[in-house]
């Protein structure tokens, strides 16, 4: 009896995820001391992850982009699995190379400081600080996983976002660093030239962000001594300025606290459901 391939897609992606995980473990290491730990998230675990990404997205827009990516494939019923690649032991260095890359004179000083960072702040992408050489080895593992997915014709993109969100709600909790490698959907370049972004980022929104961030591109004659920028086609009629303004730090702190609280609640729910 013929089997519709659509029904096999998730299973196939899980098979490729296993091969990617195998590559992580086979990847070369400069230090030879990074211990990997991995998990594969299936489709039914995506809703919790999306919720976590949306909470973290209040602070980091790239988490929102990932949330949009996963939401879109869920809505479209297109399978995606995530290989979570975690590693522990990065926050201490027994290498004793004393290379200084971390900013401390010795590995001992680095280790002593590292012990003082018990929990990462909610805005941090990983639980640092990490030994640079071990981080390079960790990254080598990640990129071998990406290459394996690529060699198997599975679109993919190594992400900090899904890794940090997964760790925040309890996956590979004891790892120092967790990155996510989404595998699928089975189409060309889903994670690049991202069609789903159009759903929430209108052209006008994008243009506003461009003008906010790259005012210099629209700057008028600087000899006038004003930070005037050209926003509209008839810019000489309606003048705009790109004044530097301080961020309200109290609001910023409050937002961070809200993120930490909401993530904690979600984590309890996820753990309860496991």
């Amino acid at each position, binding site marked *: 009896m013929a089997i519709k391939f659509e029904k096999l897609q998730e299973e196939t992606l899980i098979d490729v995820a296993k091969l990617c995980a195998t590559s992580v473990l086979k990847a*070369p290491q400069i230090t030879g001391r990074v211990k990997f730990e991995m998990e594969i998230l299936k489709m039914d675990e995506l809703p919790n992850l999306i919720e976590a990404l949306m909470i973290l997205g209040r602070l980091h827009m790239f988490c929102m982009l990932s949330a949009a990516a996963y939401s879109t494939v869920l809505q479209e019923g297109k399978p995606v699995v995530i290989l979570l690649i975690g590693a522990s032991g990065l926050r201490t260095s027994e290498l004793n190379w004393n290379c200084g890359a971390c*900013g401390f004179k010795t590995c001992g000083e680095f280790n002593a400081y590292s012990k003082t960072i018990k929990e990462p702040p909610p*805005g*941090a992408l990983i639980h*640092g600080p990490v030994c640079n050489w071990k981080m390079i080895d960790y990254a080598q593992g990640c*990129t071998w996983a990406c290459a394996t997915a690529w060699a198997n014709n599975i679109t993919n993109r190594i992400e900090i976002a899904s890794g940090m969100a997964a760790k925040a709600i309890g996956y590979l909790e004891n790892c120092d660093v967790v990155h996510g490698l989404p595998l699928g959907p089975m189409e060309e370049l889903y994670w690049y030239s991202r069609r789903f972004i159009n759903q929430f980022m209108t052209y006008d929104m994008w243009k506003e962000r461009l003008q906010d961030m790259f005012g210099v591109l629209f700057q008028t004659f600087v000899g006038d001594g004003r930070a005037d920028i050209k926003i509209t086609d008839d810019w000489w009629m309606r003048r705009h300025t790109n004044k530097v303004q301080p961020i309200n730090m109290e609001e910023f702190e409050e937002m961070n606290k809200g993120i930490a609280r909401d993530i904690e609640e979600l984590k309890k729910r996820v753990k309860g459901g496991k």
Partner: protein
Amino acid sequence: MPRIYINDWPPFSPPDQSRRNNVIEAAKLIVNAAMTAPNAGGVSQVEAEIVYGMEEQEQIARKMEDLAHEESQEHISHLYKYEAVMVREADCIVFLGDFRTIETPMDAGCGFCYGVDDCRWLYTKHPSYMGLIDATDRRSKTVVKGPLCGVRVQDFGYAIGSAMWMAYHLMIDARPYYTVGVAGQKLGYCPNSPIVVGILLAALSKNPFVDVNTAYHLVNMSKLIDAVRKTYILFRQSGGDYRISDPWAEIFRERKKKEKKEEK
């Protein structure tokens, strides 16, 4: 019809050079893999250099040996000495560096470098003005003038890993080295990068970067071959003149004598 004869012995002979040329071609593809590796935001940050040739490799190996003797810690000193041998045995070296690890960090407050959600560690340890890091003072008491931007270091790892992947798929033996990178950086390779890694490449019957014994700087193929050259030359001089002592010559002479007798 043109022919390319390949044989890995003797080293640097024309047949061996043909083989090495293949590795140099592979090195170019390996660098491509590093340049197209994943990185945060697709921002260019990796520079590369391909180095090969007896003189060039010897210069790097000697620099590593110099560093071994400047190093106070034995275990690191040994790394430099052992891996200097591998530099000599390699066919080609790829240096990769990340030029954004200090001067143009990601500014994402990621927590990689200091475990906090801002970039204060980088910006307080390096001189900066209005958020612009002045990286013109390249003097450092440590091998790497840290701290480095963690996101950039991660991206650098992706580049190295991708290079390694390509080497693996081209059936080229390869390993990335801290020590080779340090020596290369001090010699001016990847001049814009605060951190450099050296990847040694080889296409030999035996991977020269694995199964390495202790005291490798003293006990290795090159030393053993040299030992044979040194001792056999002396041994040769302790024997008789082959024209006289060769037993087959003696047998020949006896046979000739016998033949003459029989003729008579």
